[in-house]
């Protein structure tokens, strides 16, 4: 029995050591070779989740890169931003999506350590995630973390074997073709008939994601990069459901110093939405053209930017 236990224990130990070795080796190689470099002409970027991903067509706005990605929380956005900023010193402006659902604690925390999010994003960004942040994932969901770490080893070695270190692909403008807004609006109006407005500001202090937004803002500030919070257009039926007063109060409490560019009320037709929260390609084309004109007309120079936006808002 002693022989069996000793040998089994040693084998387990060697296996764990090999796995840890592979994990750190893979991560360190990928970390060194990771390619986040954009064209030298790119001087401003936007990050966030699917809302800006579908709204900002970066082929229309010059010197601008859409780095948003569906379902990406600020937790995973932070290591991405660190790399983008360190490899692209020409970047002078960072727009960060900050919208109603960022205040929904459960949705946002799930976006960090929920199974599908962690298994998707952790393997992508594990080479760049700091030990303390990885510890948070381990604390919150040890099972998902172990699974995500094992997938991460596979992902890093696939990158190494294929010599593909391109991380630019984890941020893009998403050309959304679908157009289901008419049926969605009708469906939502039926279900909202007797429903009160959603409480969106539910205990922001335990919303871990907000803490990582603060860290992204601080990172930009350290590098002398101008940061703006942005809210992409949402359908009126969606806006009506949200409690605007609570969102505004939370924003002012959390980020009083950061300028907020609110495009929430930008008018689009149903046919220009993919669903209530996302513009489709028609909406994105119209909206991005308008934003480009705003920038050319001096939006970022204006003293009161929201007033500037509102004054040029199409009727």
């Amino acid at each position, binding site marked *: 029995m002693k022989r069996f236990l000793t*040998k089994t224990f040693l*084998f387990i130990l060697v296996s764990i050591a090999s796995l840890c070795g592979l994990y750190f080796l893979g991560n360190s190689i990928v970390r060194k070779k990771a390619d986040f470099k954009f064209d030298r002409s790119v001087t401003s970027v936007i990050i966030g989740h699917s809302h800006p991903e579908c709204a900002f067509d970066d082929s229309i706005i010059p010197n601008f890169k859409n780095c948003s990605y569906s379902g990406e929380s600020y937790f995973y956005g932070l290591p991405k931003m660190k790399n983008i900023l360190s490899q692209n010193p020409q970047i002078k402006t960072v727009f960060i999506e900050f919208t109603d659902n960022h205040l929904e604690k459960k949705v946002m925390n799930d976006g960090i350590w929920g*199974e599908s999010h962690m298994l998707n994003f952790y393997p992508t960004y594990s080479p760049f995630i700091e030990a303390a942040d990885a510890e948070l994932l381990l604390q919150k969901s040890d099972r998902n973390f172990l699974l995500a770490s*094992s*997938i991460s*080893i596979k992902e890093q070695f696939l990158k190494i074997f294929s010599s593909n270190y391109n991380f630019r692909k984890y941020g893009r403008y998403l050309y959304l073709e679908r157009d289901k807004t008419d049926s969605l609006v009708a469906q939502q109006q039926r279900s909202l008939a007797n429903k009160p407005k959603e409480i969106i500001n539910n205990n922001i202090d335990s919303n871990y994601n907000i803490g990582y937004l603060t860290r992204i803002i601080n990172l930009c500030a350290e590098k002398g990069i101008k940061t703006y919070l942005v809210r992409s257009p949402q359908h009126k039926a969606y806006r009506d459901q949200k409690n605007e007063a609570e969102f505004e109060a939370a924003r002012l409490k959390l980020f009083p110093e950061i300028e907020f560019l609110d495009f929430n009320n930008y008018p689009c037709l149903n046919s220009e939405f993919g669903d209530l929260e996302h513009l489709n390609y028609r909406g994105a084309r119209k909206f991005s053209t308008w934003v480009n004109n705003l920038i050319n007309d001096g939006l970022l120079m204006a003293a009161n930017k929201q007033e500037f936006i509102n004054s040029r808002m199409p009727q």
Partner: protein
Amino acid sequence: MLFNSLNFAIFLPIVFLLYWFVTNKSLKYQNLLLLVSSYFFYGCWDWRFLFLLIFSTLLDYYTGLKMQDAPNKKRKAFWLWLSISINIGFLGIFKYYNFFATSFAEAVANLGWHVDPWTLKVILPVGISFYTFHGLSYVIDIYKDRIKAERNFIEYSVFVSFFPLLVAGPIERATHLLPQIKKARTFDYTRAVDGLRQILWGLFKKVVIADQCAEFANAIFNNYADHSGSTLLLGALFFTFQIYGDFSGYSDIALGTARLFGIDLLRNFAFPYFSRDIAEFWRRWHISLSSWFKDYLYIPLGGSKGGTWMKVRNTFIIFLVSGFWHGANWTFIIWGLLNALFIMPSILFNTNRNNLDMVAQGRVFPSFREIISMMITFSLTVVAWIFFRADNVTQAFHYLSKIFSKSLFVAPDLINARDCLITVFLVLVFMFIEWMGREQQFALARFGFKWPRLLRLAFYLILTISVFILAGKQQQFIYFQF
């Protein structure tokens, strides 16, 4: 608690250490520990169904004793049928009631009458088909005077609920397992190491082969209308390896785990995809269920004694019942029917016992004839698996007809071609190891034994690491639903 979960990785060493270090002085305590751990293991799914398991155990224990003490054959038969009726009754309620209710409603709807079926909103208790069959074999064996009723309740309960086999078999026989439970067990180093090796191979089959194949099989089957014939064929092949890796992987882990406790369970798989005809396939696939049906259904129905017609009738009956055992869906019944049809030529021409040995025994390469026989048998099983996997019969027929269309000859359209290629490569490596180890109890049993020790250890290490690295989204074992 899944075998491929962190919880089980903690549970198993704790029970192992308690078993061999704390309760090793007394067989009674060892069995009590196995029983408590088994109930804990089962309760981790849903503790409420523990009552059903305990009730089923009590029922068969009590009726077994009553049969043993029955003054005459009539009284004995009464207790047997009471046990069978209640056991099948529970299985019927939990597993088949909704199927019959909705099928009846659909049938009368065709006659123009509308009936709202009253369906049960209960989930199927995990492993019910397996432990019900354990109990049934026990009471039937007592009735047939093959065994004596077990008077020790703890020992009988361990026979029914021993955790490695509780939720997905192998379906044990009292004649095989009970004597092992009653006998003092001593730790055997070779057997324990062999057990660990079998667990490792089972995990590799489940996590690396089955779960990887599942991602593609699910994606293709769930959107079969959007794919070409070649992609659908690939999806069917992925499912073929998924179900084999999944179920035989589970059985390997179960057998390996039992060996750690000094208990040998019945072998459940013997390299079925190397079979040369369907009769051989069914001697190698889910052996414990096939032999259960043979002993408790086929032979009591007359087996092959009453001439060809009797043989054909009984073969159809056991395949239909076997299909129905797998689930309350017409797809399983058609799957059973197809297998019965596939096996018919060998039944009619009396060739069903032609291939009793392992293919290419003592040789590395099979003959041309053997290759062709294996390919035909494999293709037939792939066709049958399409029905097994499909959500309904219509989908299965559409799927099949699309495979045999012009689009079979275009390149497969897959979203993640890189991962697909990796999975195909892993399946090829897996089948190579299976082929090389096909004359053993499980492929890894003697694989690499002639290599230098360090190389063999490195091989085990690679398998262990690949189990961790390739663990994707954890998939439930397919046979848990049965």
